[in-house]
């Protein structure tokens, strides 16, 4: 087939620019809105997901990570005695209070973990080492919250719950959905910072031996332990996400924005693709008069739409990657996981092709007056 679709697309540079701009705008809009949603969602359960353990033991009825309550650390020994458990660690996540030497106060979330195993500890450490947290009073915060917490560099000291806290390092990009910064510290320090009793813990993080049937282990732990829930990491993660994104309604707004972005994107793309087809409607009429079957014309229009989609998508991804990158140092991360990128590619293709198919309806009912008009 002579390259009608390619030529028609490339012929009118202004139209091409408008079409591609429309697609790029739509795709970037969708990436930003969906990416914010994904970013927020991932943020809510970041601590859980990054723990990389198999099971979380939480006090009975705990709806999400910020809402844990203390239980006896004796359960830890019961867990360790259960066949199939590789190791288990006590863990604390709890609100507390941060005070600068100047007297400014702010809410924080203490994350107390075992610095000897590192399980549930900070990731993306850019200054200092996780091992530094073994020392008493040592804490680590994220760069993003430096200003909020009044921290400028390693070595500075602050007060948490009227106890000394010394900053020994920084992480990068560990955001808290609640905007209450995470402060990583050893489990022991955390007990002091949150004022919970010496023999209490908030969570137990369990890692199974390789080759263990996780579901069976979960069952076994449930039957051995009382007054706790044994949850898979995935389950606890999704409970936390659903709580913050949907139960609080915080995510609903973002999701609606994402859906609006999608609708606006679809409309913009449909509009531009439709206009591109209409530009050449007379040619399609001529093709039909010449006896081209509808499938032949569909092929031309769909090729044209498909090429617009691919070109628009590629350009949009350049812009998106830039925006995603720029957002990493801000308070709200836009995330673009590859699954989302792939999904949006097919979405773009679908948008363009279905927009083209809509305009094809104009071609299928051939008006002879149109081709015979001078």
């Amino acid at each position, binding site marked *: *087939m002579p390259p009608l679709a390619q030529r028609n697309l490339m*012929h009118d540079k202004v139209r091409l620019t408008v079409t591609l701009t429309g697609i790029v705008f739509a795709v970037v809009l969708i990436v930003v809105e969906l990416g914010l949603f994904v970013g927020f969602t991932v943020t809510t359960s970041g601590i859980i997901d990054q723990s990389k353990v198999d099971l979380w033991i939480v006090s009975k009825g705990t709806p999400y990570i910020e809402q844990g309550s203390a239980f006896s650390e004796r359960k830890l020994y019961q867990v360790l005695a259960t066949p199939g458990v590789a190791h288990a660690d006590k863990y604390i996540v709890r609100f507390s209070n941060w005070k600068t030497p100047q007297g400014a106060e702010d809410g924080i979330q203490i994350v107390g973990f075992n610095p000897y195993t590192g399980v549930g500890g900070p990731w993306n450490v850019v200054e200092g080492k996780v091992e530094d947290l073994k020392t008493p009073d040592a804490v680590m915060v994220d760069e993003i919250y430096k200003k909020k917490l009044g921290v400028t560099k390693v070595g500075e000291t602050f007060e948490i719950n009227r106890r000394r806290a010394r900053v020994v390092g920084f992480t990068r990009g560990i955001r808290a959905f609640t905007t209450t910064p995470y402060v990583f510290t050893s489990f022991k320090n955390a007990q002091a910072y949150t004022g919970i009793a010496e023999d209490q813990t908030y969570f137990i993080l369990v890692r199974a031996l390789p080759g263990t049937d996780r579901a069976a282990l979960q069952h076994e732990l449930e039957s051995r332990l009382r007054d706790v829930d044994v949850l898979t990491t995935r389950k606890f993660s999704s409970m936390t996400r659903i709580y913050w994104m949907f139960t609080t309604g915080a995510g609903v707004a973002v999701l609606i924005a994402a859906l609006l972005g999608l609708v606006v994107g679809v409309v913009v793309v449909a509009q531009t693709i439709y206009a591109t087809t209409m530009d050449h409607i007379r*040619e399609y009429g*001529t093709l039909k*008069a010449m*006896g*081209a079957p509808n499938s*032949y014309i569909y092929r031309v229009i769909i090729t044209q739409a498909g090429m617009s989609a691919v070109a628009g998508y590629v350009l949009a991804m350049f812009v998106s990657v830039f925006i995603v990158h720029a957002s990493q140092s801000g308070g709200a991360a836009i995330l673009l996981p590859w699954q989302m990128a792939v999904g949006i590619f097919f979405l773009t293709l679908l948008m363009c092709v279905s927009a083209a198919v809509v305009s094809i309806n104009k071609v299928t009912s051939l008006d*002879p007056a149109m081709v*015979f008009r001078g």
Partner: protein
Amino acid sequence: MQAAISVRDVTKVYVEGANKIQVLHGVDFDVEQGEVVLLMGPSGSGKTTLLSIMGCILRATSGSVQIAGQEVAKLSERELPEIRLQHIGFVFQGFNLFPTLTVGENIELALDLKRIRGERAKQEARKLLDQVELAAKYDSFPADLSGGQKQRVAIARALAGSPRVILADEPTAALDSQSGRNVMEMMRDLARKHGRGVVVVTHDSRVLEFGDRIVHMEDGRIAEPETEASGRKGMAEVVSMGLLSTNSAEHALRIC
């Protein structure tokens, strides 16, 4: 010899909402192979409608239309494109070339529809362009051609795949008289040479001499029994000498 097109008692009623407009009232019309028929008549008399029905773009409301012996009036909407593809070449007033394709590619596209592709299509396209004396313009774009040249490309395209019938609606209306004559002459010569039946709708009295026959339409009917070729020829000469205005020439044709 079998007629290229044979139209019998064709009517056409356009339905627009509750309105029904009868545009053709029992038209009989034949086109022989190798013959150029000029279809004339006032605006709104149904020429384009008749041409569209013969070209299988529109379906007659009743009556019979045979193309190369095949009855097409009863064919479904979905079968018509194939008939157009196999038997009919169109030439339009506005040329309707594909502006983004080169002259050669325009012809190749028509051949592609008829499943002639690759090197064979290129050869065939060159041959067709040669027939309209435009082989040198193979790689030019339509925008770089004059109106007459564009219409000649359109004729070459209409001839692609050797259809039995060429249908042209006002092919010279957008051309100056020299180009118009040139285009008509080419169409007539190619029709004769290859035994195509050609129908040309025209208002253009300057091209009357290129028709073998004139059929006059009025209010959806063929106005007169078809005129004799000899009689017409004499009249065409009179017209081309400028002794008669178009209107009186048409009038004269109707009464002879």
